[in-house]
């Protein structure tokens, strides 16, 4: 059995550098005072001394301890020194923590009853050996935290269940289950399964698509004359052998040496083979003598045709000109005749001019006279003869009459005739020009025809005499060319037929190749499950499944252990719990409290029910004070039973009386008095009523009253026993 006898605190949390010593000589020790006076620091000091950093930070499992400070802010070092009475004598545990230069230094020392000292790891081991209680268990079964009471008091079943688990010391199970739950392994497996599912769907789609394509290709092949029994490797090979033979034969037919085309070792190379065959056929054909010959003859024919056309055209053109000339001569006479006519007209014109000349002196005289007389009329001298100057009555009229009646008519006559002749003269001149032009054209056409004949002569390699008709020779040559062309074209047609046959076979090879390729691809896809990768995927699924089933089963075992342990603890403490509850609450409606724990089918966790003597749930009818009493009863009931499982002979209660009524507090103190028969109680409270009841009712107690806490000096502590 371990009992704390003395606690000495220096620089720890609410205690600045000043030693405060608390003697534990009575069964009940009360630390009383308002908030923030350092009371809780005493209780914390005990657990820190025993458990060190297990009770601080995240590891403690207490949220408020996350940033817990050990060393008082006005100190550089925290020292807690506890004396514990054991069966073998007093053991001293001294734990320190100091901060300086940004570093934290910690020490732990255990002084055994025989005076030997253990430090650091040995000291920790010694403490563990002595105490035999994990911090988690200590924090739930030795030290009742305020949070624990608050949690039980809540109406929410899930929170209450959680608080009960902690109270019953099942925190380790709960925490481990929480860790397992948060790893979300099932979600990961789900994702993996979905991933694989997608892959399977893709495979099925691909196979379906490729089968449809294969069917299309097979139909295409059949439409090209391929039979079902040929749509395989053997069929393909036969076609390839055929085509190779045909190609070689073709080459020798053309008299050209063929290129060596390697025969494929498997069907996959057949597409390359087909390509090479196609190339070879094209190559052979381009070099074929027939093609060359055809090209040359075609070119020659083209030239001959051109010359022929040119010759004919030229001849026609010349003929046209000559015909034109004939017509001209027919219409207008020959050039000689035109010349003659021109001469005659010239003579006639001359004669007329002579005649006019004769008439004209007279006429010109008369004309001039009229003019003079007309001019003179203005000066009233119109009747005076311009020659002799004698007045001749009506001279002007006379002259004008002479002119009109005789001279003019004659002259007009002659003028008109002359005009006529001159007109004709013009016409004949035009005819002359025309004639000359026609002759020139004829000359030109004849020249051009000679050129054509020269070209024909060069083309045929023959010089023509005047009697020889170049066209005839040309036509003869054309005839020969055409005959040869015909022969060559026939030969080409024949060979093209062979080429087409080879190319057709080549296309069939490609069709069969594509079919085999698709069949192969489908087979490959269908055999994916035989690949190492697929087997590896299956293996991974198995590994994951095993791992997850192991984790889930472990979680189930943890839950089983948790519920069993809860049941065991409850069953061993049930009577005490019920007894304490009845004593504190004195609820007339409840004669007995039973705690039932079962596995919650929904969450898998523990589900606690509180039943009365008639197996009815009591939680709906409990007040806050009743709930608090229940929490206290459970704690005290368990601690009563726990005596066997660990040696700590004390329990710590921090602010236990929250929500209790006055009467309940009184009865609570009576219960405490009962519990103190077997365990030391270290109680911290600010509740004056509780303090008063303890002072009045508890037989043996020590009351440490805390007040006037300051940062520099800490609390002022008054001790009364």
């Amino acid at each position, binding site marked *: 059995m371990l009992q704390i006898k003395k606690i000495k605190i220096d620089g720890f949390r609410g205690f600045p550098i000043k030693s405060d010593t608390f003697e534990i000589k009575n069964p009940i020790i009360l630390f009383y005072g308002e908030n923030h006076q350092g009371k809780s620091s005493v209780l914390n000091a005990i657990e820190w001394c025993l458990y060190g950093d297990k009770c601080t930070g995240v590891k403690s499992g207490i949220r408020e301890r996350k940033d817990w400070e050990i060393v008082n802010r006005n100190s550089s070092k925290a020292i807690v020194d506890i004396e514990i009475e054991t069966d073998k004598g007093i053991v001293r545990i001294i734990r320190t923590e100091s901060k300086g230069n940004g570093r934290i230094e910690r020490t732990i020392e255990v002084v055994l009853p025989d005076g030997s000292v253990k430090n650091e790891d040995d000291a920790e081991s010694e403490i563990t050996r002595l105490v035999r209680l*994990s911090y988690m268990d200590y924090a739930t079964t030795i030290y009742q935290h305020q949070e624990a009471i608050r949690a039980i008091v809540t109406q929410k079943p899930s929170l209450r269940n959680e608080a009960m688990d902690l109270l019953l010391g099942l925190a380790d199970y709960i925490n481990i289950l929480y*860790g*397992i739950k948060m790893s979300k392994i099932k979600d990961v497996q789900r994702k993996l399964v979905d991933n694989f599912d997608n892959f399977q769907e893709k495979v099925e789609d691909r196979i379906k698509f490729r089968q449809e394509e294969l069917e299309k290709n097979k139909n295409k092949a059949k439409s090209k004359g391929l039979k079902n029994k040929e749509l395989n490797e053997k069929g393909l090979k036969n076609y390839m052998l055929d085509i190779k033979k045909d190609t070689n034969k073709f080459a020798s037919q053309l008299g050209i040496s063929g290129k060596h085309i390697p025969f494929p070792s498997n069907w996959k190379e057949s597409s390359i083979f087909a390509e090479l065959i196609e190339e070879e056929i094209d190559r052979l054909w381009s070099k074929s003598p027939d093609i060359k010959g055809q090209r040359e003859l075609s070119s020659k024919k083209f030239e001959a045709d051109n010359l022929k056309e040119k010759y004919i055209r030229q001849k026609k053109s010349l003929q046209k000109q000559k015909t034109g000339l004939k017509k001209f001569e027919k219409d207008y006479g020959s050039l000689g005749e035109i010349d003659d006519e021109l001469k005659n007209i010239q003579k006639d014109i001359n004669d007329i001019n002579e005649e006019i000349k004769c008439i004209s002196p007279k006429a010109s005289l008369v004309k001039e006279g009229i003019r003079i007389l007309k001019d003179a009329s203005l000066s009233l001298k119109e009747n005076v003869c311009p020659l002799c100057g004698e007045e001749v009555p009506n001279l002007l009229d006379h002259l004008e009459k002479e002119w009109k009646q005789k001279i003019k008519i004659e002259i007009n006559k002659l003028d008109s005739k002359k005009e006529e002749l001159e007109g004709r003269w013009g016409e004949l001149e035009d005819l002359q020009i025309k004639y000359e032009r026609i002759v020139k054209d004829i000359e030109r056409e004849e020249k051009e025809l000679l050129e054509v004949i020269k070209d024909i002569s060069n083309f045929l390699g023959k010089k023509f005499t005047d009697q020889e008709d170049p066209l005839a020779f040309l036509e003869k040559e054309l005839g020969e060319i055409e005959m040869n062309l015909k022969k060559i074209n026939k030969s080409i047609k024949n060979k093209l037929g062979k080429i087409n046959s080879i190319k057709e076979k080549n296309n069939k090879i490609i069709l069969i190749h594509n079919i085999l390729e698709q069949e192969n691809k489908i087979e490959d*896809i269908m055999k994916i499950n035989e690949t190492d*990768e697929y087997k590896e995927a299956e293996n991974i699924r198995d590994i994951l499944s095993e791992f997850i089933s192991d*984790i889930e089963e472990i979680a189930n075992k943890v839950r089983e252990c948790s519920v069993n342990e809860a049941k065991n603890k409850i069953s061993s403490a049930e009577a005490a719990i019920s007894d304490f509850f009845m004593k504190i609450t004195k609820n007339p409606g409840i004669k007995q409290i039973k705690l039932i724990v079962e596995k919650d089918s929904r969450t898998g966790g523990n589900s606690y029910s509180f039943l009365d003597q008639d197996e009815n749930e009591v939680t709906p009818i409990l007040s806050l004070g009743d709930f608090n009493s229940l929490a206290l009863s459970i704690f005290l009931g368990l601690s009563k039973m726990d005596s066997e499982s660990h040696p700590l002979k004390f329990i710590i209660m921090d602010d236990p009386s929250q929500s209790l009524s006055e009467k309940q507090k009184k009865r609570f103190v009576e219960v405490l008095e009962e519990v103190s028969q077997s365990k030391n109680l270290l109680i911290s409270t600010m509740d004056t009523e509780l303090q008063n009841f303890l002072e009045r009712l508890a037989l043996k107690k020590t009351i440490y009253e805390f007040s006037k806490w300051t940062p520099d000096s800490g609390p002022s502590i008054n001790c009364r026993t």
Partner: protein
Amino acid sequence: MKYKEKVKEKIKESDIRAKERLKIWDKICEDYEKGGAEQVKSDISERVNAIKSDFDEIISILNKML
């Protein structure tokens, strides 16, 4: 730790995969003692995610075969 032994006994009761489960349980306890629930969660997650990551890689190779 009491909880450790109690769960171990339970695991031994079933004959299927008891050996593997005991190993895993030891690791869970180790993680728990080292870093609490968080360490348990993180270790299991890491293992499971590593398996899934390997799987995803294989699936991507298999997809390429299509």
